[in-house]
């Protein structure tokens, strides 16, 4: 079994983490990216809450990428790291709808771009992480029996 075949789960998690980072930074837009701000009573323009959603998702993407990298280096901990990546995916999925909800208007930039994108990527990370963890458990179990 070559290196890629042995480590594809770690590579997948790393790729997904980098995809989340890249997509959130360049492809998925919050209202701030579209130039919309909230104005306080003193006239100060502050970012809307979807800006924080974007940063949180970006951070989670970075975390998932680190998990993927560690899965490649610390192969003995791959199952736990995969599980952690999966849980981070679940958090990523619920961030724009519950943890740091995006703005209220359905037609606003964040709800048309950041929210669906983050939820889709979160679901993919969760599937890859949790699925990989189950698969690794089975793999470890077979190895132990052998």
């Amino acid at each position, binding site marked *: 079994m070559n290196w890629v075949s042995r480590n594809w789960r770690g590579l997948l998690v790393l790729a997904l983490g980098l995809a989340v980072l890249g997509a959130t930074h360049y492809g998925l837009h919050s209202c701030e990216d579209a130039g919309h701000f909230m104005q306080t009573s003193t006239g100060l323009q502050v970012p809307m809450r979807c800006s924080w959603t974007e940063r949180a998702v970006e951070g989670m993407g970075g975390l998932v990428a680190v998990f993927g990298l560690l899965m490649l280096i610390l192969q003995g901990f791959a199952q736990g790291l995969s599980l952690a990546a999966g849980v981070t995916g679940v958090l990523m999925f619920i961030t724009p709808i519950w943890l740091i909800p995006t703005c209220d208007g359905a037609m606003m930039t964040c709800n048309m771009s950041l929210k*669906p994108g983050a939820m889709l990527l979160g679901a993919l990370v969760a599937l890859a992480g949790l699925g990989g963890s189950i698969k690794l458990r089975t793999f470890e179990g077979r190895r132990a029996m052998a």
Partner: protein
Amino acid sequence: MSRETGSPSLLKLSLLNLLRKPGRSVGAVLGVILAAGTAFAAGLIGLGVNHSVQVGVDRLGADLMVVPKGAVPATHTALVMGEPVSFYMPGSTTEQVAAVPGVKQVAPQVYVETLSSAACCTGRLFVVGFDPEADFTVKPWLETGLRRPLAGNEIVVGNHILPLIGEQMKFYGSDFTIAARLSGTGMGMDETVFLPVETVWQMAKDSFTKAEKPLQIPPDSVSAVLVRVADRPQAEAVGRQIEAAVPGVSVLTAGQVTQGVARDLRSLMSYLVPLAGGVLLVSLVLFVILFAAIAAERSREIGLLRTIGATAGQALGLLTGEAAILGGIGGLAGVAAGLGVFALFAENIRVSFTLPFLWPPLVAQVLLGLAVVAGAAGLGALAAYAPAARIARRDPYLALHPR
């Protein structure tokens, strides 16, 4: 293998065979998921757009809309997407249109674009002033839904407008209370605010002292005249008569709205259909290759089954059954994935392609899903048929000794 227990045993055998190499099964199913998901999403969009247009045109209640010349495209966008527009024509247009033969009922409307508010992030809104006496768009709903006329500062809002019933909205410095919310249509009405036309005039008057920028509407003017004709099939002919009789106006028919939406839908489908078709083709080729390999690999197993009494049909059923199960699972996962991804990006697609959309009834969605799953299972079996038939019909001795 007895004939009485043939089918369940075949099913079990097929499932066990698929689970024997889960990686290969998952690989084969991925293409099906993509094709089925795209097909389901495309079907859902088609159903949802048609449903929305039906509900929206019924709610509008008009056979024709008379607007100033050149304002038809903007009116279409306002009707479909709720994009604010404001244009005006003389108020006498209403009487001129009413006098055209074939016209049964007319209802003038005044359109206003609100200023984007710094304190609120909902942006511009489309405000429609209706004549409470003549209106047939909002008034019938008020009679059954609200069961009372609107008070001076009350408004009715479309289904997508954010604030709740009883809350206030501010337009041009005037405060209004939301009295009712219309049910969803998936069209521009969901993004529209309705209020009596007298209130619009009062708001315009007050805006000179209350608003950052005054609302300037030419006195005694209307934006559109909604028309009901006496004989519906003659609506287009009446529309032409109106354009001939009243100078400076254009007529938008319900049929034109439907045609415009169909044009935008075709534009979206021109991306989706080739994508689904291409992925489907690749999946079919993959299935043929995969089952050719599986059939060759399991030649001895099939030969053994034939030796102990299984018929060629049962052996064929075993292999095509596996393909059908694989296709069906892929179809089911594809439907779930297509539904999920479409639900996430529905608003984005709606805006990008200027399409109205209202979720079709649940029964229609379930039937569409079942059709996609059945199609995926059927095509899977069809793709595996040729290699499966070749191996199933082989002489049992030759199947047991392939070389």
